[in-house]
């Protein structure tokens, strides 16, 4: 059982939807992003998705692209991101942390070394956008062996024929991408998402969390209402980009969490 599994078990027992908040590690600088991260659980955020900056974020829209650039310009590295999680863990041993990003920085470090360091730092799961099931031998299987969850994206193009392959080596939860597109694009309607979530849930016992395009507490409520929870990224990153203080950013995330929890 990882922290992710425990969190979803306790949310289920309470009959509560999950709220997942995404921030970019090192955006706009290491200290500020760590402060935001530390403040999120107190605002009701159930799971933290921590972005690892990459020069070529092919699945991200401008908001998260720029966040990554700010982080890299500020000197963020994979080592600093791992240290950031370790620092967070000193004050919080229960909130799951999922690292999200692209494969090359991990491959560059070496998969085995990275997995050992990630576990040591207190990371619970990975979402790596450019590793589909066809490349499971690269990181997915070694990560599961190392005791980390490997969370897979399912998308509107994942048809019934392909779904079993996508679910096969997934653990923790399934992240349903509600639209075909990049992060920060227009939102999907709950009425469109509901049958897709039902389709996935019929094929797995894992929680299904929906993300992409959710920006308001009302939307968080709507989407969480037809799934096991929802993720918000770009809307929170925008608050950081506009220069809001960590407390203000966390409070904004809190309003989204309240939306999801009211579903």
């Amino acid at each position: 059982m990882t922290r992710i599994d425990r969190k979803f078990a306790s949310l289920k027992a309470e009959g509560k939807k999950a709220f997942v908040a995404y921030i970019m590690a090192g955006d706009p600088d290491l200290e500020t992003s760590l402060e935001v991260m530390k403040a999120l659980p107190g605002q009701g955020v159930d799971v933290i998705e921590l972005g690892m900056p990459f020069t070529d974020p092919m699945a991200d829209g401008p908001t998260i692209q720029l966040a990554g650039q700010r982080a890299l310009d500020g000197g963020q590295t994979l080592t600093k991101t791992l240290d950031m999680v370790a620092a967070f863990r000193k004050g919080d041993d229960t909130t799951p942390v999922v690292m999200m990003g692209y494969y090359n920085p991990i491959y560059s470090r070496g998969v085995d070394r990275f997995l050992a360091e990630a576990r040591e730092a207190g990371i619970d799961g990975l979402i790596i956008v450019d590793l589909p099931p066809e490349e499971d031998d690269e990181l997915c299987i070694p990560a599961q062996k190392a005791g980390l969850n490997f969370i897979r994206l399912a998308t509107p193009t994942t048809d019934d024929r392909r779904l079993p392959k996508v679910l096969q080596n997934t653990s923790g939860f399934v992240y349903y991408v509600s639209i075909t597109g990049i992060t920060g694009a227009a939102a999907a309607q709950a009425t469109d998402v509901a049958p897709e979530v039902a389709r996935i849930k019929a094929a797995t016992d894992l929680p299904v969390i929906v993300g992409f395009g959710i920006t308001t507490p009302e939307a968080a409520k709507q989407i969480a209402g037809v799934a096991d929870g929802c993720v918000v990224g770009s809307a929170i990153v925008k608050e950081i980009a506009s220069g809001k203080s960590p407390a203000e950013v966390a409070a904004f995330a809190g309003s989204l969490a309240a939306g999801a929890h009211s579903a």
Partner: protein
Amino acid sequence: MADDLINSFMSGPDEQGRFGIFGGRFVSETLMPLILDLEAEYERAKTDESFWAEMDDLWKHYVGRPSPLYHASRLTQHLGGAKIYMKRDELNHTGAHKINNVLGQIILARRMGKTRIIAETGAGQHGVATATVCAKFGLKCVVYMGAHDVERQAPNVFRMKLLGAEVIPVTSGRGTLKDAMNDALRDWVTNVRDTFYCIGTVAGPHPYPAMVRDFQSIIGKEVRWQLAEQEGEGRLPDTVIAAIGGGSNAMGLFYPFLDDPEVKIIGVEAGGKGVDEKMEHCASLTGGRPGVLHGNRTYLLQDDDGQILEGFSISAGLDYPGIGPEHAWLHDTGRAEYVSITDAEALEAFQLSCSLEGIIPALEPSHALAHVMKIAPTLPADHIIVMNMCGRGDKDIFTVARHLGVEMNG
């Protein structure tokens, strides 16, 4: 992998789209079903005579193939060594080898019922070729081009617009070819139903590297029979040389000779200001290490943390921090040799081709020619070199003028 363990260098990629450890399908889940569909369609087309009949017809009547194999006699004399042939793909319609591949992909797109074509471009040659074939078939065409390249390749931008394409200057990242490819991929994940992504080189997720190579292989296949015609039955080149951005004109020339061990194969990367620790170059094999970008594993210019570096070259078409995965494999197996040529050396070759042969080359093949200039004098007169003159220099005259200190109002 040792040389003697490989029966054939022409059998790759494997089922996973791998050439050794290189290649693969490193894309987001949204795109995975699309590239599987493309692979299935390409596999069907490969053995479908009507597909190749259509290609042959267009290659002949629209592109102007076969392109000549030309004995560059004054250059040969000037360098005083090996006998030099140029494969004249710069005479193709649209002025480069790029259209060989675009035709294949657009015919596939039509077979798949796609109505909107997207492409990335660096020098603009692939963009122009794509816009051209889209105009011919009445398809909507959107070309992503780094904002920096839009500036330095202005004539090609105007050409694409004349041909009815929408050119989108890419400002994300640092605004060069790799960023254009990122934005094209972002477009594709957004428009999955009607859009076909026409990649311009032997890179990207499987099946692109193999498919683009197959379409470009017409270059090497022609060289085989053309050289036999001019030099006698069975005569193969002793050395084949081509410039490498992503590596498509090079794979096209090299592939039909991979299993002829007597043919020496040399790829020429862009050395920019010099291949050293300042990293102001695009020589991925010489100055990079294996990594994963744009759907495949290959040699990449990257920092210690796995962040991708910007390339640097006088030639927009070579300005890419990666290289096709098959080249990475040919490099590691030792079947091909890879060298680099600096901006200054390429400029010198550019001028020599103009003055001795009356051929204004693109800056990309000028790199290949510069390496010919280095090795030809050291080789005997019966040594035959075939270099790929894969593009004409019309697009580059402003850049060259600037480097030569000539003022021009273009």
